[in-house]
């Protein structure tokens, strides 16, 4: 694209995004390290909310609202129900991490190092102008709706069938009075 400015003079967008990113990453870390199951779910809410903010900064406002509605609203509630139904201990419990922790840390760290190296090498000069002087922003509900129903109708319909199938599957799996023949 056009010539990228220096990393040493961040714009306002960048500062906000970085703050939100730090919140998201920190909350994510807490999700995978906390000793309380319910706290993990709540930190997940924080993380997903911060991500929604990131989407907003990136001008994808419709996706951001959907994120808040579905993830923060539905998914986390679902998770909390799951925690409740499996009678997970409320409060601190020492054994939430399995013995695999060291291996997992090594693998995750290595993944991070490799990916950061690769993307830093690949996207060092990629830049997008988010100021009003930049290109037209297309993240509104109107634009997304037009795109979905103009160009993406067929995947959208397939997805609705998938949802239905998942719904039926979940019901069959969770009900105890349905037996296989």
């Amino acid at each position, binding site marked *: 694209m056009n010539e990228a400015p220096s*990393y040493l003079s961040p714009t306002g*967008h*960048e500062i906000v*995004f970085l703050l939100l*990113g730090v919140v*998201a*990453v920190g909350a*994510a870390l807490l*999700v*995978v390290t906390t000793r309380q*199951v319910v706290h*993990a*779910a709540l930190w*997940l809410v924080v*993380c*997903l909310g911060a*991500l929604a903010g*990131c*989407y907003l900064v*990136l*001008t*994808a406002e*419709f*996706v951001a609202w959907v*994120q808040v509605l*579905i*993830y923060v609203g539905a*998914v986390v509630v*679902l*998770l909390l129900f*799951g925690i409740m139904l*499996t009678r*997970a201990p409320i409060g601190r419990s020492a*054994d*939430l*991490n*399995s013995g*695999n922790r060291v291996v*997992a*840390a090594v*693998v*995750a760290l290595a*993944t*991070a190092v490799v990916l*950061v190296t690769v*993307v830093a090498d690949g*996207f060092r000069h*990629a830049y*997008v102008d988010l100021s009003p002087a930049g290109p037209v922003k297309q993240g509104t509900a109107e634009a*997304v709706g037009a*795109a*979905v129903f103009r160009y993406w109708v067929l995947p959208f319909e397939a*997805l609705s069938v998938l*949802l239905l199938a*998942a*719904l039926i*599957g*979940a019901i069959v*799996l*969770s009900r105890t009075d349905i037996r296989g023949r």
Partner: protein
Amino acid sequence: MHILYPVVVSVLLFSIGIYGVLARRNTILVLMSVELMLNAVNLNLIAFNVWLEDRLLGGQVLSLFVIVIAAAELGVGLAIVLAVFRNRRTVDLDRLRDLSEPEPEHEGRGDGAAAKEGVGR
């Protein structure tokens, strides 16, 4: 805005998700970690959609689809976890060892003769 910022955040979230999947014992926590990984991908999709100025909004639409699929996955996944919990009274991943090879019988009985002769079962 430098695309590097969202991409690096996405990488970090994804790695944290990997750690959670590999290290957590409770199945529901593992599902949460999977959600983290999905969201890392979503962040990538949004960032590249903006950077590439896609007229079809492929990135944003696809991230919507991912959110929907993630919800479906979570619903089915939780149903499975509940079914496991009903049968086993536990959702600890390292206690669900049906994939393991059964222990050789002679070790359990202390019958070392077969092992001494070097014959398999």
